[in-house]
């Protein structure tokens, strides 16, 4: 029972951490609080729906392709011309991008919710050290955990990662050292696309459905996690997302049912409190870039 809960809580934490990094990375590099992140996830989810009859790994690969393409297109068409705009303008622009992609999806392929039958292997339950664990929870944990390790490796060990982190901290200094905006910004969007795609694969498996507005919740989770963790540091953001996920799992098993409906209200009240009292985030000691 406890192990079962732990795997589910840690898995949800890892998923939320993944979502949060996607938001925090673009915020760090571009000052962009990207509300179109949800629609990048939508792109991945749509691929999972489209290729639902293919082997699951093929669908996942296609989800990555779809999400990366949408992420890069949004950069090219909307955010590139606004590279020198202030963060609020960027945020409004991302609203527009979000609505545009959602409308496109509604117009063409997703006028209504589509069911995606869960893969057979996900429905199984396995016996792990005496606990009855669902394969879905295991997959969430394994996939998101792997992605987190991969992102940590890329950020910490590769030249691109160092450049991304430098650009996230001080874009002007980084570019005066020769870090190229035209390399770093698209790379950040590609990374975000991959993260979103993996997130979407997990979300589709958990929800069993795809709809045009499915990106809203995960996007909001990413924003809340990033603010809680401190938007300027990826590590802080990931930790913020992880704790948010773990806390959600805990709350959902502890809170009485009639209060669970108000979970968002509690969450966003906490968000406002953090913004007002501790704008640098709960977990970060660093100074945050204000407005």
């Amino acid at each position, binding site marked *: 029972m406890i192990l079962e809960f732990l795997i589910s809580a840690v898995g949800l934490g890892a998923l939320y951490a993944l979502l949060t990094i996607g938001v925090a990375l673009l915020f760090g590099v571009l000052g962009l609080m990207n509300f179109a992140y949800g629609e990048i996830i939508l792109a991945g989810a749509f691929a999972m729906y489209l290729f639902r009859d293919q082997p699951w790994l093929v669908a996942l690969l296609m989800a990555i392709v779809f999400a990366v393409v949408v992420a890069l297109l949004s950069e090219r068409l909307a955010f590139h011309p606004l590279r020198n705009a202030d963060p609020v303008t960027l945020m409004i622009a991302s609203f527009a991008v979000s609505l*545009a992609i959602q409308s496109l999806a509604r117009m063409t392929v997703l006028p209504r919710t589509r069911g995606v039958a869960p893969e057979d292997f996900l429905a199984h339950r396995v016996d792990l050290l005496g606990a009855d664990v669902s394969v879905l929870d295991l997959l969430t944990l394994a996939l998101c955990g792997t992605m987190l390790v991969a992102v940590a490796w890329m950020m910490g060990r590769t030249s691109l990662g160092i450049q991304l982190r430098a650009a996230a901290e001080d874009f002007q200094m980084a570019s005066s050292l020769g870090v190229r905006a035209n390399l770093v910004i698209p790379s950040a969007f590609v990374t975000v696309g991959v993260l979103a795609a993996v997130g979407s694969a997990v979300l589709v498996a958990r929800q069993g459905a795809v709809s045009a507005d499915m990106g809203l919740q995960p996007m909001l989770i990413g924003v809340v996690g990033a603010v809680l963790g401190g938007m300027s540091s990826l590590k802080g953001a990931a930790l913020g997302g992880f704790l948010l996920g773990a806390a959600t799992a805990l709350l959902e098993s502890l809170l009485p049912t009639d209060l669970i409906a108000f979970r968002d209200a509690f969450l966003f009240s906490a968000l406002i409190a953090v913004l007002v009292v501790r704008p640098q985030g709960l977990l970060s000691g660093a100074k945050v870039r204000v407005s």
Partner: protein
Amino acid sequence: MKKLGSVTGVLQTPVLLIALVLLAALVGVGGDVTVARVATLAIVSVVFVTGLSIFSGSSGVMSFGHVAFMAVGAYTTAYLTIPVNLKAALFTNLPGWLSWLVDAHASFLVALLVSGVAAAVLGVVTSPIVARLSGLQSGIATLALLLIVYNVLNSWTDVTRGSSSMIGIPRNTTIWLAFAVAAGSIAAAWAYRRSRSGLQLQASREDYWAAQASGIAVGRHRALSWILSAFVCGLAGSLYAGYLTSFNVNSFFLTATFAFIVMIVLGGYLSLSGAVIGALVVSGLQELLRRLQDGQFTGGSALPAGVADLILAAVLLLTLIKAPLGLMGVRELVLPRRRRRAAPDDDATEAVTPAAEAPTQAARGA
């Protein structure tokens, strides 16, 4: 800073704006049922965006949460004007401490006022947030406010009917009532801009810390404008409910927020004229797009739902890229000077409000 000139000089802008709204009202009165409906809702939008402009236009801080005030106004009006016997049938599970809601009843004008006050109360409660936050953080916090209000309205089923519609609100909003409220709101917004508090707040737009250092209590002025704008947006919500006679919680969420953002950004969020013109222009555009989507221009073949939203999003993006300060920038509507076509530069300097400058500089920050 321009000295307060002749009375006609000072009142030129609000009078012109009210005349514009009057024009919209006359179009509505002269037109068929559909036109009347579009005109009335456009004027309700003017009220809302004028309210939003009282805060955003003076402080330079964008808010994504004002629709929450509109929601409070609409729900208040519903509670106060739905006939008592219908209410008893609609709300069978009211918690004991709210059971008085069933019997509460007021005339529409009283309900309108109470709706504004109720929104203003939420404004008072939330004012410490905007008093302390700027830029992006304020944007996120105001959005969070909207999400909280939406979540509560959507989940507190016993009191708010949750995702079911509020129905049975008597239609009390006439186009002339909407016009009267819009005119009053424009006058109030203009009066606030010219007031001491409004002028100081506009001075803080350029440089928050410089204004703070020179003794301007930016937080207090922001809170004041926030509460005033909440009141006006509450009125808009009340008019909305009193016109449509039924509404759903989803009317007060991201779609509405987005539409109002398009209005204020397209018009120019720093200028009251921009807000009013943006509301009228975008309302008209939305109706055109609705007809396009229904197939009225394509020989009856309906376009897929979503086309209108897509075009609206494209309009917003183009505005942000090509003219981030909107159609009006920091200018206000004035009559052309005696020379029929004054040089554009000359015109601009004449029309500029006090302490006008590029807000993007201020917002850009670090």
